[in-house]
């Protein structure tokens, strides 16, 4: 074997170089077996960095590339592409993580961080020497999409898909479309009518023969992967199996029920923001209203800011203040988060209109007392430094949005992660917004994080745009990390068949020789079968026991050198 490995160590500006002595690692890399060239870049992922890697591949006749930089989870495709452009098979590239796994977590130990970076590079080089070129296979894509959730995000996503001519199934739990917007009068800060907005999108959807709306239905099972999912929709007339190429999650949000807080559930005058919306929709115009914000959020156990409640409070406070000249509207808040210039303008307009704002701290929250018909809010006013009592017809609690009750079930069905509050986690906020790490599954709206209607619409459109890419291309590339069987070693015991979570392996008869065979289109590349095999007959491309063993050897060898 004669290979020529190029090693490129990234400074990542100061991110790596502040803890790891990059030049020292470069010099060390030059001493490693098979390394024909070692260099460094200020930013390897920049145009300039990629260009210099590509030039070096040609100049130094490299046939393997190792980049020591950040994480393969975000940057591997970029460097693989550069290798391909320079004429090297992209599977002859190996990524070494010396930022997230080294410089950032050993920031104050430059010597140790440098030693560790050297070992990690040695391990990467050892694996790279054994990499083999691979060919990726392709699979077809079913030109249908499933959108879970018929709120505004899901509606917009579905409408955008059918507009592109894509067959779309919209699954809604209830019998009405529009989600939370059905209970809301106007959308701030512009004051657009929520129901008109919903009606317009629904009309557009219903006009298309490509739309299939499933009301009072839920997704009960999801099988398959990008390009060929099989989604079971449990509707009024039993389960339907829908083949689909992509799935969009738009399961939205629900309002927190602040039972026991500020007399909610005890005094009828204490209601939530959504209940106020319903009253406003019926034409009620209460005059003496106290709003309390951050009820049940930004405190231990539920630390997050729900983002939309301040603006909703401002919008409704202004509307009530304008509705009658003798109204007395008070907002008791912890901070006003009116992000965006339009919302900032709304805040100013609201305070100019005569709405009074009082700040409270968690250590001295307001109190609601009732004497039957009326309620009083007792609050310590920080500015006056005294306790004041505000009488009210209504106390409106701005409560946070929560993920829907069944978000755990949805997460498990689709194998997508959620954060500690239960909201869905996208693959990367900046590099892969609205996408899940699971290919072919997308996320939009408040199921991801509480957002306002406008942001729901943007995200719905973004998710639809992303979902339409594989569908329009008509094919997806299957990463060459699938398992393969050496029929010579295989004893046809069937352990791998049982181990495979995807039923991708079967025992076949080949010229009178029984052996396991992997169906590449079905294999997802987990490697479970590899460890299940007693005869070392199954291996996973890019993660062979030879390659991983070489990494262990390299670590042992490098540690030996380091300890002397």
């Amino acid at each position, binding site marked *: 074997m004669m290979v020529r490995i190029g090693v490129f160590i990234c400074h990542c500006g100061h991110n790596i170089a502040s803890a790891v002595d990059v030049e020292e690692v470069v010099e060390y890399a030059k001493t490693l077996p098979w390394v024909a060239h070692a260099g460094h870049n200020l930013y390897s992922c920049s145009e300039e960095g990629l260009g210099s890697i590509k030039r070096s591949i040609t100049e130094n006749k490299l046939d393997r590339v190792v980049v020591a930089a950040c994480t393969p989870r975000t940057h591997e495709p970029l460097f693989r592409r550069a290798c391909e452009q320079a004429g090297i098979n992209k599977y002859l590239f190996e990524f070494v993580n010396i930022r997230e796994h080294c410089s*950032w977590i050993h920031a104050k130990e430059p010597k140790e961080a440098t030693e560790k970076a050297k070992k990690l590079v040695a391990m990467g080089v050892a694996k790279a020497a054994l990499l083999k070129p691979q060919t990726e296979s392709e699979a077809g894509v079913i030109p249908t999409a499933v959108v879970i959730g018929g709120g505004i995000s899901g509606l917009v996503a579905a409408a955008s898909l059918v507009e592109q001519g894509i067959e779309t199934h919209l699954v809604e739990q209830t019998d009405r479309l529009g989600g939370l917007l059905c209970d809301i009068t106007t959308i701030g800060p512009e004051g657009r009518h929520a129901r008109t907005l919903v009606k317009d999108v629904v009309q557009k959807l219903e006009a298309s023969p490509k739309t299939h709306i499933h009301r009072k239905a839920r997704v009960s099972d999801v099988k398959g992967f990008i390009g060929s999912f099989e989604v079971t929709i449990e509707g009024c007339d039993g389960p339907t199996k829908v083949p689909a190429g992509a799935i969009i999650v738009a399961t939205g949000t629900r309002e927190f029920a602040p039972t026991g807080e500020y007399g909610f559930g005890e005094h009828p005058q204490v209601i939530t923001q959504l209940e106020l919306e319903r009253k406003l929709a019926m034409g009620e115009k209460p005059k003496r209203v106290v709003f309390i914000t951050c009820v049940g959020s930004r405190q231990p156990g539920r630390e997050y800011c729900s983002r939309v409640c301040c603006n909703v409070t401002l919008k409704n406070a202004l509307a009530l203040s304008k509705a009658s000249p003798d109204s007395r509207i008070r907002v008791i808040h912890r901070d006003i988060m009116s992000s965006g210039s339009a919302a900032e303008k709304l805040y100013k307009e609201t305070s100019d209109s005569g709405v009074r704002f009082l700040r409270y701290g968690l250590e001295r929250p307001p109190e609601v007392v009732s004497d039957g018909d009326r309620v009083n809010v007792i609050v310590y006013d920080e500015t006056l430094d005294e306790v004041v009592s505000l009488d009210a017809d209504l106390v409106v609690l701005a409560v946070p949005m929560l993920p829907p009750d069944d978000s755990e079930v949805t997460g498990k069905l689709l194998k997508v992660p*959620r954060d500690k509050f239960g909201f869905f986690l996208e693959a990367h906020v900046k590099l892969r917004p609205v996408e899940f790490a699971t290919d072919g599954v997308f996320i939009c709206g408040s199921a991801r994080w509480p957002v306002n209607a406008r942001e729901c619409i943007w995200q719905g459109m973004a998710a639809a745009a992303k979902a339409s890419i594989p569908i329009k291309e008509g094919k997806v590339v299957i990463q060459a990390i699938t398992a393969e069987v050496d029929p010579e070693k295989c004893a046809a015991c069937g352990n791998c068949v049982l*181990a495979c979570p995807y039923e991708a392996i079967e025992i076949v008869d080949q010229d009178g020789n029984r052996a396991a065979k992997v169906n590449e289109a079905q294999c997802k590349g*987990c490697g479970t079968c590899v460890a299940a095999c007693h005869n070392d007959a199954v291996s996973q491309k890019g993660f062979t026991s030879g390659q991983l063993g070489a990494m*262990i050897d390299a670590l042992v060898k490098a540690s030996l050198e380091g300890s002397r």
Partner: protein
Amino acid sequence: MTEFKPTILAFCCNWCSYAGADLAGVNRLQMPPNVHVIRVMCSASVKPEYVFKAISQGVDGVLVLGCHIGDCHYLTGNHRTAKRIPVTKKILHDVGIDDRRVRLDWVSAAEGEKFQQVIIEFVAEIKTLGPNPQREVNM
């Protein structure tokens, strides 16, 4: 005598624990520099042989980290890990190696702090166990 600096290997699955380690980095959670991560797609692909190989060659400790049960990217891959690693530990124990040198744990993509905690604890544990006796033979 010079201070004992353990050499530790960690197998992290691509979807949860590797991502959790990344998150620990993004959040700049500091931890001892003894752990070297090998990325695998699923913790279920970690052969007992890899663990035996590392331990027999003198690596002081091996971590196998996967997704929490129920959260495996490959449906039930980690169910196998959950059975396989205890058996691996038992075999090590039976041949006279302290099985505390191998630890199985679950770290999700959202658990940067858990990753940090596992690393800190494991490094401390290995330090109390002292160098892997196999070091004498191989290193």
